[in-house]
């Protein structure tokens, strides 16, 4: 087979269906990544227009442009769209598109999950957009503090749009994070050990782990606040044992890491592009990785610095002030690595480099004002003033938008196969850079002069007139620059000006694909033994196209790739991906129906939607697998590997583990909330305690034992060639017992609407019951699979996943009962 014939065969196998309708069923990362990016930039545009409205309003005193009700919606939606619908999805899109190419493989670990994430983002974003168009958008500020956002002060539907829409969108962040983690750990080119991974992959690995542990507190907070608003469960109402500070903790437990979730991928972009622009390699790769890891974890210990003015004791403030100054250290390690890289190379001032310099200048200033507000007395002065908004834009625009624009100019030729023809970019950069600094430098001073944030108007006597006008003029210069970028991208798409292959002379593998990359990325997979394989072997692309790597011979209509050992990158399994399907969009739509039902308060639809989700999820997994053993499959280069159905740790196992990391963080946050209310909230102790029951404990004990023993027996039996159904049935019974025990526990608990204590017990119990149902569904699914002949002693992968979930479901049941009964029993 020659290179052209191979290309045709592989394209037939990997492409989405023809025409625009293909978008609805595509699962290929090339499509999904671009869909994410286009949608994210659309929201950047919308949020940018809102920013212009803000600056128009603030340009003059006594502005009559928008009244406070509308202004509140405008700034809330500006912040919300920028953070949740632009920044995070843009990162996801970029990583979905680039990671498989950089890692030298053909797709991410779970193609359908990527598409599902996109559609959740699409529908969830649409919900928020509709609210904006109808003038009923969220208006409580992007961090939605209760009691302002509680039912009393925000009776309208505005807040519900935020809580439900954002939670819906966050499904895409969690699913992308699971997908990235498993892909980076297991789906790389053969030979690519951890130390040979492209630096961007390291940053994305760290970021993904942060998403898995950073987003759950926000999701929990949103669920609790929505429960309070819909059903009157008083988590944040002080009179009934709640505490509005709980929201602030949960929000910033998410919110601070969020800033680094946005910054780290951008730093990954800088660490990738900067060495190329300087024709050298990154200085101190290991130290940069260590710094990124340190930064990620330290950033989880900072959240209270957003709450310095809430009356927390001094010692608590000192902890978080110290931790906040500490993060400057790993950040500086990275900055010095970048400066050193420039030093050792020969930097050229090409367009991506300009944006990187813009990033440097801006981000360093943002970091310094960050250290300023980390100092408690200073923060007491500037909290909630324009100084803070100025600081956050230096960090977010400097730390994210500039690198993103660098990435845009750097990778656009790869994605389109074309080069820039007109030279608008340089002018655009100048406008953006000048416009940005005029806008936000001015806002620092406005803040120091006492201008509060989120005010819709001010009077001439305040003395802020000139400074605001300057800021607004800067804002419009900035907008002009951004529009020029848009125009340039459009021109780029219209003018056919072919780009030479690997035009930046980069060393990473994405430049070894054809420009524009085919749906399958690589005609055959490379064997890697250098961090920059393309620099080590410039002939690599031609050899891969000739099929000289792994999997060079297309096999039937199968989408094939390899999974490797985490540390060494030795090939381990042969992977077959599912093909195009409408399941992701349908599942996302049904998921959306659930959120819509809650939003419009047609509550009876919600359980129906849940059932729909369960049915579709069943179908989702059912279509995988096969009914006969495959044995070892030849993957080329003289190597044969087992398929993923015939291993102990299939991709589904890895995905489950990381999904459960997120799940456990949510549960941990709930326990934190319980403990927080108990110790801090003024309305405690509650008027009535739960009555511990020996029967409940016994029933749960049996359930927990069965849900651990059952899967164990099932795996054992299957491996020994006998029927695993008995073990599976035990597991099913175990889940049923747990669910029954927890229902019984809740029936004996105080009313959930009377006091936050009862409300928390309800959520704890509900969480356990939900998991029991999920585990039961899994066991039932496996019983059906066994009967349909999908398992065998060799095809053991599916059954291998149940023990993980069984243990988790059992474990949380124990913790829930302890949390409910132990304090009562002790006192």
């Amino acid at each position, binding site marked *: 087979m020659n290179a052209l014939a191979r290309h045709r065969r592989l394209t037939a196998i990997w492409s989405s269906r023809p025409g625009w309708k293909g978008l609805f069923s595509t699962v290929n990362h090339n499509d999904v990544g671009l869909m994410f990016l286009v949608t994210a930039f659309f929201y950047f545009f919308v949020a940018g227009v809102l920013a212009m409205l803000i600056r128009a309003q603030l340009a003059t005193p006594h502005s009559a442009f928008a009244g406070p009700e509308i202004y509140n919606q405008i700034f809330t939606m500006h912040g919300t769209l920028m953070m949740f619908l632009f920044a995070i999805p843009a990162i996801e899109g970029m990583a979905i598109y680039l990671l498989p190419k950089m890692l030298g493989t053909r797709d991410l670990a779970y193609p359908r999950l990527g598409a599902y994430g996109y559609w959740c983002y699409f529908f969830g974003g649409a919900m928020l957009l509709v609210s904006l168009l109808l003038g009923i958008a969220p208006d409580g500020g992007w961090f939605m503090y209760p009691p302002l956002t509680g039912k009393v002060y925000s009776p309208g539907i505005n807040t519900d749009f935020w809580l439900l829409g954002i939670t819906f969108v966050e499904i895409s962040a969690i699913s992308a994070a699971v997908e990235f983690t498993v892909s980076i750990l297991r789906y790389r080119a053969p030979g690519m050990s951890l*130390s040979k991974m492209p630096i961007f992959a390291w940053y994305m690995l760290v970021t993904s782990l942060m998403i898995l542990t950073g987003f759950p507190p926000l999701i929990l907070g949103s669920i609790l606040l929505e429960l309070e608003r819909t059903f009157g469960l008083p988590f944040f109402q002080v009179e009934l044992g709640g505490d509005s500070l709980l929201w602030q903790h949960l929000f910033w437990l998410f919110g601070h890491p969020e800033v680094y979730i946005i910054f780290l991928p951008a730093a990954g972009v800088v660490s990738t592009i900067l060495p190329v622009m300087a024709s050298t390699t990154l200085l101190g790769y290991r*130290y940069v990785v260590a710094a990124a*890891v340190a930064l990620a*974890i330290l950033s989880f210990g900072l959240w209270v610095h957003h709450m310095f003015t809430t009356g927390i*004791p001094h010692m608590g403030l*000192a902890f978080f002030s*110290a931790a906040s100054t500490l993060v400057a250290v790993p950040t500086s390690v990275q900055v010095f690595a970048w400066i050193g890289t420039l030093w050792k190379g020969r930097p050229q001032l090409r367009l991506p480099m300009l944006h990187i310099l813009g990033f440097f200048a801006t981000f360093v200033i943002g970091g310094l004002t960050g250290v300023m507000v980390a100092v408690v007395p200073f923060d007491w002065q500037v909290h909630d003033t324009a100084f803070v908004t100025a600081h956050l834009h230096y960090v977010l625009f400097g730390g994210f938008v500039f690198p993103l624009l660098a990435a845009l100019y750097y990778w656009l030729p790869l994605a389109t196969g074309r080069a820039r023809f007109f030279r608008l970019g340089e002018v655009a950069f100048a406008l953006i850079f000048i416009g940005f600094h005029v806008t936000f430098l001015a806002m620092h001073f406005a803040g120091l002069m006492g201008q509060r944030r989120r005010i819709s108007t001010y009077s001439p006597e305040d003395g802020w007139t000139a400074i605001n006008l300057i800021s607004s003029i800067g804002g419009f210069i900035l907008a002009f620059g951004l529009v020029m970028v848009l125009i340039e991208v459009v021109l780029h798409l219209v003018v056919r000006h072919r780009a030479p292959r690997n035009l930046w002379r980069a060393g990473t593998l994405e430049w070894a694909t054809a420009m524009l990359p085919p749906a399958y990325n690589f005609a055959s997979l490379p064997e890697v033994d250098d961090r920059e394989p393309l620099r080590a072997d410039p002939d690599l692309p031609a050899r891969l196209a000739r099929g000289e790597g792994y999997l060079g011979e297309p096999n039937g209509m199968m989408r094939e790739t390899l999974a490797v050992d985490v540390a060494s990158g030795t090939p381990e399994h042969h992977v077959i991906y599912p093909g195009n399907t409408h399941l992701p969009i349908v599942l996302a739509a049904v998921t959306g129906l659930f959120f819509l039902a809650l939003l419009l308060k047609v509550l009876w639809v919600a359980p129906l939607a849940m059932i729909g989700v369960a049915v579709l999820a069943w179908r989702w997994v059912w279509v995988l697998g096969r009914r006969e053993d495959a044995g070892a499959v030849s993957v080329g280069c003289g190597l044969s590997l087992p398929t993923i159905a015939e291993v102990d740790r299939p991709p589904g196992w890895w995905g489950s583990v990381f999904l459960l990391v997120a799940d456990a963080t949510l549960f941990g946050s709930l326990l934190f909330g319980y403990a927080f209310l108990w*110790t801090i909230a003024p309305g405690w102790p509650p008027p009535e305690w739960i009555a511990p029951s020996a029967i409940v404990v016994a029933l749960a004990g049996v359930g927990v034992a069965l849900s651990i023993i059952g899967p164990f027996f099932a795996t054992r039996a299957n491996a020994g060639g006998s029927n695993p159904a008995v073990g599976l049935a035990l597991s099913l019974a175990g889940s049923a017992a747990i669910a029954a025990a927890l229902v019984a526990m809740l029936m004996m608990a105080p009313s959930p609407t009377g006091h936050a204590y009862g409300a928390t017990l309800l959520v704890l119990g509900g969480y356990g019951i939900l998991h029991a149902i999920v585990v039961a569904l899994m066991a039932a699914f496996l019983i059906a699979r066994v009967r349909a002949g999908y398992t065998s002693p060799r095809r053991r992968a599916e059954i291998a996943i149940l023990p993980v979930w069984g243990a988790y479901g059992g474990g949380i049941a124990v913790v829930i009962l302890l949390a409910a009964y132990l304090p009562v029993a002790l006192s």
Partner: protein
Amino acid sequence: MMDLLRILVAPVVWLAAFSAVYGLQGVLCAAPPEGTVAGLPMARVLLALSFAAALLVQVALLVLLLSRRFGASRGFVRTVSLGGGLVGVVATVWTLFPVLALPLCQ
């Protein structure tokens, strides 16, 4: 997975200790324990002890990461995991020293 653990363990343990001490401080202020030790209030003593314990754990982790048996053998993972170990120690000292110096509950 083992390499990932080596890289992450020390800073994650710092995070756990940091949150735990913060939580402990909240509990001690909500329900102040009785008694004194060498003239110091019990709450202060408990906090200082937990600081010492956290520091001890970090030092132990660093020693483990340096050791032949548990430390990484590959150069790359070794550097990165030792970096993590160092971050754990420094972060513990820097973020928890307020338990010795600041007023307890004001």
